[in-house]
């Protein structure tokens, strides 16, 4: 402690320890929050086609087109209405077919950056990615469930995967090339 360097050394070390303790405190105060918020998903239109799937087994597979609305007020991990950490949102469809007990397809996603507003009010959205089934499991499927989930990237601690509490189950049309409105 009698030279400048030794004082600087102990000052750095002490500040670093305090910063580590504060980071742990940040983790403790954000880790046990319930982040699930109500999400309202409304599907306005579903179109079903049977087309050649060139990526898959080279047979005609079911391809669904959805038009949907999402309204949700996603809280950031600390609770205020503006994001303090990035969020990765995605809309996924879950359904079961004869060949697979559980299929999950990501239809749409969005990255909400720091500082953006998290009050989502999206109307007449088209799905970003192809909703391909690996067979003919979409036609006349009575229970296709859409959920909105998101990853939270916090300052410190675990990366929570939050699923919104609102989910939408809908039946798909019985015939191809027909548009069903809900």
């Amino acid at each position, binding site marked *: 402690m009698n030279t400048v360097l030794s004082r600087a050394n*102990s000052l750095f070390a002490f500040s670093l320890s305090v910063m580590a303790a504060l980071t742990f405190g940040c983790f403790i105060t954000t880790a046990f929050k319930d982040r699930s918020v109500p999400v309202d998903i409304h599907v306005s239109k579903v179109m079903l086609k049977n087309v050649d799937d060139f990526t898959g087994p080279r047979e005609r597979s079911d391809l669904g087109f959805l038009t949907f609305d999402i309204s949700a007020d996603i809280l950031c991990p600390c609770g205020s209405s503006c994001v303090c950490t990035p969020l990765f949102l995605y809309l996924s469809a879950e359904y079961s077919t004869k060949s697979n007990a559980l299929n999950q397809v990501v239809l749409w996603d969005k990255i909400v950056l720091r500082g953006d507003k998290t009050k989502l009010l999206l109307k007449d959205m088209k799905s970003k990615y192809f909703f391909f089934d690996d067979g003919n499991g979409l036609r006349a499927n009575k229970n296709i469930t859409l959920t909105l989930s998101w990853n939270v990237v916090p300052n410190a601690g675990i990366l929570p995967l939050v699923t919104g509490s609102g989910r939408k189950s809908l039946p798909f049309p019985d015939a191809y090339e027909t548009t069903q409105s809900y």
Partner: protein
Amino acid sequence: MLSIFSSIPTHMDYKGQKLAEQIFQGIILVSAVIGFIYGLIIEQFGWTVYIVLAGFAISSLLTLPPWPMYRRNPLTWQPVLPESPGDGREKTQENTKKPRKHK
């Protein structure tokens, strides 16, 4: 040129070192508490980090340079013994060596 640098006092006395340590620990802890509460209220951890960094800057400004307030209790050295033949010479060497070790 070098004599200018060597004439700059860089040391602190023992009480000054203790005072400096208490000052920087106090400033950093207080800024950490303030920053944590402020960051908890506005819910942004970045501000906590900024406030702690500000406390770090203030405490390094206050305690890194050897300000005169840290040199108020200089060590009282033993007076130089009159040089005498025999073992008296070794004693004076020991006496002068001991405090230098702590310096």
